């Protein structure tokens, strides 16, 4: 709880320094064009649009993500990963609505469905529903956007795959001359595949339909950007996902009233984005480090001990032509139950872009552990294509 007070204090100090109650009802739409042009006939200055019931349809897109691979452990496989439909649109002047629906071999699921405010005062944005919590950098990227074919172990095991969560989040853009954004959130838990925070006993008992406030997960994050000249920049972020009490550990009710879980992350992204010929040349070096601290049960589920484990990844993506990019990556992940055990992944990718709407990726990688097991050698070919609505969002830059 102390950590949260510190985060809240800093948040309030920086927020208060920019408080300005200037919320006005949005003005009426400004008709900036006295003689609007027509798309179908540029010289037609006086045509009236006829009624079109589809004019307020949401923007829609479809993403296909598939992989063909061979690993020394699991042999060959064609992995249809997902066909993802995304919808977005304005509800009214105050809210936007977003939905991402994912079809996978396991069925169709709602990956994200949330509202976001557009007109709050004090540089605030609120979103609520199901979304990828704003923890770290890559944890809230969809699988097909990642710089490697499969989510690396540090993201899978520490965050619980994508940072999918049901909850509410508030973001604030600080009134500083430099970019500084803060996030506070509250959720059931964070992680699309994070059964450790289920707060149930696995047999239908426990906090199934609700949970105490101290069993929710709370997030604090600060994110800033440091420009280094015109061509270079550094993104820096720090995140803390805190669950004050885990009532159930490994499916067994924990007697420890202080069984809190803390996931801390630091993300650093260095970019080279030259101002000239940057369609062909850019470099991104991304790194995240995680620390997980939680009470874990031994295999008999009778002994509970606090375990602290570390993990992290680093990758480089070098775009050296309009068509190609390439780079190495690595991951180190300690076992959450036994931090003395770890896995290490080393790999490299080669990407081909026929346009900004498609990407073909070849990845060679090897997963090792420190128990002398035979490494898993992997070859993957991934293809990603998209049609429909084309929006450059801030986090994808």
């Amino acid at each position, binding site marked *: 709880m102390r950590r949260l007070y510190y985060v809240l204090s800093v948040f309030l*100090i920086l927020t208060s320094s920019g408080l300005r109650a200037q919320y006005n009802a949005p003005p009426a739409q400004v008709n*900036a064009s006295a003689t609007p*042009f027509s798309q179908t006939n540029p010289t037609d200055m006086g045509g009236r649009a006829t009624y079109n019931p589809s004019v307020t349809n949401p923007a829609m897109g479809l993403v296909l993500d598939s992989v063909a691979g061979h690993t020394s452990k699991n042999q060959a496989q064609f992995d249809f990963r997902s066909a993802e439909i995304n919808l977005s649109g304005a509800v009214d002047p105050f809210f936007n609505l977003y939905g991402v629906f994912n079809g996978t071999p396991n069925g169709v699921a709602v990956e994200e469905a949330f509202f976001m405010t557009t007109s709050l005062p004090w540089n605030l944005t609120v979103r609520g529903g199901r979304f990828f919590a704003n923890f770290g950098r890559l944890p809230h990227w969809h699988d097909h956007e990642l710089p490697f074919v499969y989510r690396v172990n540090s993201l899978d095991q520490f965050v619980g795959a994508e940072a999918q969560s049901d909850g509410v989040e508030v973001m604030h*853009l600080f009134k500083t001359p430099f970019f500084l954004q803060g996030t506070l959130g509250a959720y059931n838990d964070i992680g699309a595949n994070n059964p450790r925070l289920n707060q149930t006993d696995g047999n239908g008992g426990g906090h199934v339909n609700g949970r105490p406030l101290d069993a929710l997960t709370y997030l604090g994050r600060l994110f800033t950007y440091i420009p280094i000249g015109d061509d270079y920049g550094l993104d820096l972020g720090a995140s803390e996902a805190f669950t004050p009490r885990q009532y159930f550990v490994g499916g067994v009710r924990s007697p420890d009233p202080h069984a809190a879980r803390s996931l801390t992350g630091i993300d650093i992204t260095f970019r080279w984005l030259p101002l000239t010929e*940057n369609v062909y040349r850019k470099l991104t070096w991304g790194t995240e480090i995680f620390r997980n601290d939680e009470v874990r049960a031994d295999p008999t589920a009778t002994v509970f001990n606090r375990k602290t484990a570390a993990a992290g990844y680093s990758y480089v993506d070098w775009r050296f032509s309009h068509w190609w990019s390439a780079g190495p990556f690595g991951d180190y992940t300690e076992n959450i139950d036994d931090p003395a055990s770890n896995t290490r992944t080393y790999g490299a990718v080669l990407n081909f872009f026929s346009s900004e709407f498609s990407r073909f990726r070849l990845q060679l990688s090897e997963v090792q552990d420190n128990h002398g097991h035979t490494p898993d050698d992997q070859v993957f070919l991934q293809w990603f294509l998209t049609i429909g609505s084309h929006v*450059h969002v801030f986090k994808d830059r």
Partner: protein
Amino acid sequence: MNKFLRLTFSIGLFMLGALPAGAVLRIVATTPDLADVTRRVGGDLVKVESLAKGTEDIHAVPQRPSFVPKLNQADGVVLLGLEAEHAFLPALLDVAQNPNILRGRPGYIDCAENIVPLEVPTVISRAEGEQHPMGNPHYNTDPRKGSMIADAIARGLSRLDPPHTGVYAANRDRFKKELASKMEEWSRLTAPIRGKKAVSYHPDMSYLAEYLGLDLVGTIELKAGIPPTPRHLEELVRKMKDEKASLILREIQYSDDTSRWLSDQTGAKVAAVATMGGAFPDSQTYFGMIEHNLRTILEALR
């Protein structure tokens, strides 16, 4: 909570601050040439910054987080429109948390509002490359559009600052008078260009070509935003020879290699041109950008 925590908490609760009420309008323009025209029209009543430096491809201006506070604190944003800035501006406006400069609001100053665009696609499909569905947005390269840009900016500044409408109108008229004088001079200077044939790297020189009477016979790109394939380059060489195209317009944001190769194959000369102000040392202003392009084309055709 210990004393330190209580203290920081209290400071947080009671610290107040407000941005000083500025005497000037804070305007963010997407390109340096628009920033220059805004300064000309706004005079001492505006403080203007440009997001792009001018050397970038406008379709790939980076979404630098350092742009976000500028937009957050801006009274207005001046843009080319016609989705020219689609790769960076909408995302930045989303994060900037400034409702006053969103599309349709008084602070959203779209210089395309009265432009009749060239090359409005009749077929909209990604098979045709990275199209601009509302038409070619690179009208700022045509000096005849300069007065319409100034009109749009004056209207926008007047919306934001009605008491100074007369000042903005007078500044705009001064700009237009200087533009008209320069255009007389440019017409005489560029008469030799009329009727010549050329290619450009990307389809963003159409407005300039129309102004100069230059006939664009093709682009180095296979389609807008799609790099050339070897076959396309072979066909382009043939076409340039058949059409006797003597000029290659190489926009500064694209690689020189292909243009030089094409020049070697066809004998056409390369002119390095700007699609935004700030691309070259002598093109920092709107007039500078136009004059640089005219001079470099004339030099190439000499």
